[in-house]
């Protein structure tokens, strides 16, 4: 397998270059571009990022592995991230998580066999005032209860 940035992303990269005093700063922006393009970060992309940023591929790997939102293998079509931190816990996230597990038949860290859902338990999403909260991909769902959760999942295309 090989990796190449799409022409559209190459255009974005040119624009990004002028925004930073050093190409080294492009590490995270480029990792995000790769993940948006491929759905995850294939190992082959480290070389491409290294070339642009002037870091070594190993440096890129070391950085990338630090950040919890970056993935090195594909996730389900719907990546459910349910908050496990304190405010959501006080507002009943454990029950929601149990419901989700039973409904989808997978635990946190797993993907359904049809590749539709991945569940992940994450730390505070910044929705403590509208707890309990989760995200599906980048979209927030807040003030959840099991009924609401069912409706949300049923209405996904």
């Amino acid at each position, binding site marked *: 397998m090989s990796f190449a940035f799409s022409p559209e992303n190459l255009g974005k990269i040119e624009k990004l270059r002028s925004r930073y005093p050093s190409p080294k700063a492009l590490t995270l922006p480029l990792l*995000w571009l790769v993940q948006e393009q491929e759905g995850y970060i294939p190992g082959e992309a480290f070389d491409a990022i290294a070339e642009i940023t002037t870091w070594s591929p190993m440096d890129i790997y070391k950085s990338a592995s630090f950040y919890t939102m*970056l993935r090195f293998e594909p996730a389900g079509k719907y990546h459910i991230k349910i908050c496990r931190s304190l405010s959501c816990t006080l507002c009943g996230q454990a029950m929601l998580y149990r419901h989700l597990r039973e409904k989808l038949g997978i635990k946190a860290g797993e993907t359904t066999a049809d590749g539709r859902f991945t569940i992940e338990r994450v*730390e505070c999403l*910044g929705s*403590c005032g509208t707890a309990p909260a989760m*995200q599906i991909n980048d979209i927030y769902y807040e003030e959840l209860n099991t009924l609401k959760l069912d409706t949300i999942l049923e209405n996904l295309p």
Partner: protein
Amino acid sequence: MIRDVRIVSSRFGLANSHRLSTVLMRGAYDSLPIHLKRPPEQIVRAVDESGLRGKGGGGAPAGEKWKLMPRNSDTPSYLVVNCDESEPGTFKDREIITRDPHLLIEGMILTSYAIGANHAYIYIRGEYKSFELILRRAVDEAYEAGFLGRDIAGSGFDLDITIHRGGGAYICGEKSALLESLEGKRGHPRLKPKGKEPEWYFGAPALVNNVETIASVPYIVMNGARCYRQFGTAQSPGTLLFSLSGHIERPGIYEAEFGVSMMEYIERFGGGVKGKKKLKGVIPGGISTPILTAEEAARATLDYESLRTLGSSLGTGGMIVLSSEADMHGVLKNILGFYRHESCGQCTPCREGTSWSDQIASRMLRGEATMKDLDKLLELADTMNGKTICVFAPAVSGVILSIIDKFRDEFTERLRP
């Protein structure tokens, strides 16, 4: 009585408050041409005299940090706005960037002008992607209207703003870790310098401030330091977007001046403890601040001095309310699970301490721990309060000690002989 004061949230209630067309009718950017002609030192002085304190959790006087930025130097300087907001219990910066992003942008223009920066970054946590899009649109609007870019509002001052998306790591909110991350590396906090100096971004001086700190700047610059000091207390001037979550009737963020009574705030804005249950405790400013018992909360006022006197700290002002329903074993385990996950792992006491204490808390929760385990936990807390690169580990230590100390009976009851 709590006065109604809105410095940062004054436009939050307007329909389409995130759009330029809306806020232009409410005075946004109006006085830029005047202020961008003033000597920059005057703006630094106004902020210094206002007593504005950093609203990202530390409460450092903003003016003192601004004064560390070099004047008329040949190398560029940078402003970096911290929108990493990941401390459990904290959700205020999100409100600013989605409900009044132009207030932040105006604050960034004034701040950058004052410190001599021509490029400013907003480091935003990766999870906030959908909010980032609102902020991006506001930045684009500001460029189109000539409030960003070259020769802003005919003043001769240039400023670019770049939004930088984080990758999901709590520690990147720590300012030096944030800068490491912004340089393309892992978000590892740096060793602190001995003396006072600015932060550094690729060897150039950088000022790191929280979103809400910068969003408070337009009010101060337009109305003067004295006006800002009408609100709050002598040591904690102005206001904060305090917030409420947990066992509370009406969770949310409500701006108030410093110095108001904690319980009055909880009653007036939050409608009291959920389900009229008894109050058990309040974590005053995000989970990293030591817990207060109900009795301490009754004595607390919302300012830096009061909470320090009570052995805690104001933190981010994100209060987590615990009712009699709260199980302190669960609370402790939940908090330690967070720290174990988020320690960056550079310092042994922190890496090992967070992991071990989380394991002990699990055993305590399940009723499998003995007095020896509890003692071990307290010992671990002690070591975490030693020499570490950043204040993450000492904060964990304070949190453990406060919870065990104040609810000791609850913990000893569940110990095995």
